[in-house]
């Protein structure tokens, strides 16, 4: 699973996935091209969630707040302070880091169901605060970032994030960095400790590990990744809305991760992709598409109880990270 078991194979698989996504940029029709760019950003959100839920075993019901921290950190920065795109993205990361550190310090005093409730409540506070400070945040209307605000000037090169190819490529770069980072983290000594905390926290403590500090580090890394996804979403798609802070966006990453396979590095991508397309395809045929989505989810739980990749790993591909 970790050291000593085909690290080359695992890295090769991940690089191949990234290469495939790169090639898709050139062959996908416009509609799917746009959809996939969005999925890559949301899959990054799911990867941040998976790090905490899949590997540390901490089930948060408030991760929308970290996504929203990045979304509004970047969006408000651009809208009110005229920040350039790279600076706004840094602001998103900073917002995610500060928020997750504070939330981690408070919420990690609890565990299990209490942790779920506490994270959910904090996320509700943020969502309501966004609505309350409507003059600043645009309330439930949200904010739209204009095209000229979303252009990156790097020396003489101009990168227009409203251009589909530029948008796809930036989304892919973000996704790839986070994917390889996740892989590196879960294969590291730190990752081994995180998994140990998930399996048996008391035993991990009695092996000399400060489990609180390790969990806090995981919350912050997870929060920063989700904020990076949020920041990228604002800058790439130009919309900053309060619905992204709602409880729905705390549940969605959980669903995506469970579908794709918790504690698998590629599971979040598979889950997000699957969920997005099943909604997209079925809603084209019937207005009762949620019924079909529901049936698909039940079938999946029956035949792939550990998610798509989780079950694949359990039954056939043991070396999958």
């Amino acid at each position, binding site marked *: *699973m*970790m*050291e*000593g078991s085909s690290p080359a194979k695992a890295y090769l698989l991940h690089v191949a996935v990234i290469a495939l996504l790169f090639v898709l940029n050139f062959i996908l029709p416009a509609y799917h091209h746009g959809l996939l760019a969005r999925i890559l950003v949301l899959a990054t959100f799911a990867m941040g969630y998976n790090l905490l839920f899949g590997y540390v075993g901490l089930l948060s019901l408030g991760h929308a707040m970290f996504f929203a921290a990045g979304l509004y950190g970047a969006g408000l920065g651009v809208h009110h302070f005229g920040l350039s795109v790279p600076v706004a993205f840094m602001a998103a990361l900073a917002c995610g880091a500060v928020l997750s550190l504070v939330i981690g310090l408070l919420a990690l005093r609890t565990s299990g169901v209490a942790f779920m409730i506490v994270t959910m409540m904090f996320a509700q506070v943020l969502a309501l605060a966004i609505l309350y400070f409507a003059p600043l945040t645009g309330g439930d209307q949200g904010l739209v970032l204009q095209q000229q605000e979303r252009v990156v000037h790097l020396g003489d090169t101009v990168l227009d994030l409203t251009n589909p190819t530029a948008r796809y490529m930036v989304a892919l770069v973000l996704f790839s960095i986070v994917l390889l980072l996740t892989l590196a983290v879960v294969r590291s*000594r730190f990752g*081994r*400790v995180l*998994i*140990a905390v998930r*399996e*048996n926290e*008391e*035993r*991990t*403590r*009695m*092996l*000399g*590990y*400060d*489990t609180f500090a390790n969990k806090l580090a995981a919350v912050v890394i997870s929060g920063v990744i989700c904020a990076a996804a949020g920041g990228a979403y604002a800058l790439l798609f130009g919309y900053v809305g309060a619905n992204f802070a709602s409880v729905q966006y705390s549940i969605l990453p959980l669903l995506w991760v469970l579908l794709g396979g918790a504690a698998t590095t590629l599971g979040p991508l598979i889950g997000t992709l699957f969920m997005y397309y099943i909604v997209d395809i079925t809603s084209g045929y019937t207005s009762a598409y949620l019924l079909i989505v529901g049936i698909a989810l039940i079938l999946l739980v029956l035949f792939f109880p550990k998610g798509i990749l989780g079950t694949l790993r359990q039954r056939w591909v043991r070396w999958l990270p």
Partner: protein
Amino acid sequence: MMPLMTTKGLSRHFGGLRAVDNVDFALMPGEIRAVIGPNGAGKTTFVSLVCGRIEPTAGMIVFDNADITNLPAHKRVRLGIAYTFQITSIFANLSAYENVALPVQRTLTDGRSKGQVHAGVMEALERVGLADRANVPAGQLAYGHQRLLEVAMGLALKPRLLVLDEPTQGLADSEIENFIGLVREIASEATLLIIEHNMPVVMELADRITVFEAGRILAEGTPEAIRSNAAVQRAYLGGGDD
């Protein structure tokens, strides 16, 4: 010679129950000390206080001349106090290798050992005879092997004081014989504090025995002295047939 570990007036009350009551205890470096006593005598509570799993109501604990009474458990482990659980507490879903890798990398991070994780893991697994089962999920190992894995995890922490809580519980007689050999070998490097119910094992291994009853130390001495102690016989050994 200075004791490695002492407790002074150590107490832990659970409500009205005095699980450990005003215990003064000293452990010399290099000895094998057995702690015996009837069920509920406070043995596990006592060693849990020593390794920091629970906090004392009163009293102090000194390890290697330093007051560790308020030190959190994970920091005591880094000082060299290792604890192996009474109820096998391995990481059942992880391989035996991963189970041992955790304590090995801990000592590497602390600078208490050198080298690679892999070498340290294989050394610890070889010492308990589980090297050929390194990749087996720990939960699928036979019970006796799980106990040995637990010991390997303790060993891999490079302890100066290793606390073994009922290590032979559930082992077959043939396994116990090997186990005694293993404990002797460990004792050449570490001080051992063993809670044990199996009296032949205690009598064979221990340099000294401490007898607990109702949270207090009833008697302490060499195996011979304890065997002939009338109070101990009344409380625990049941008439001295043992």
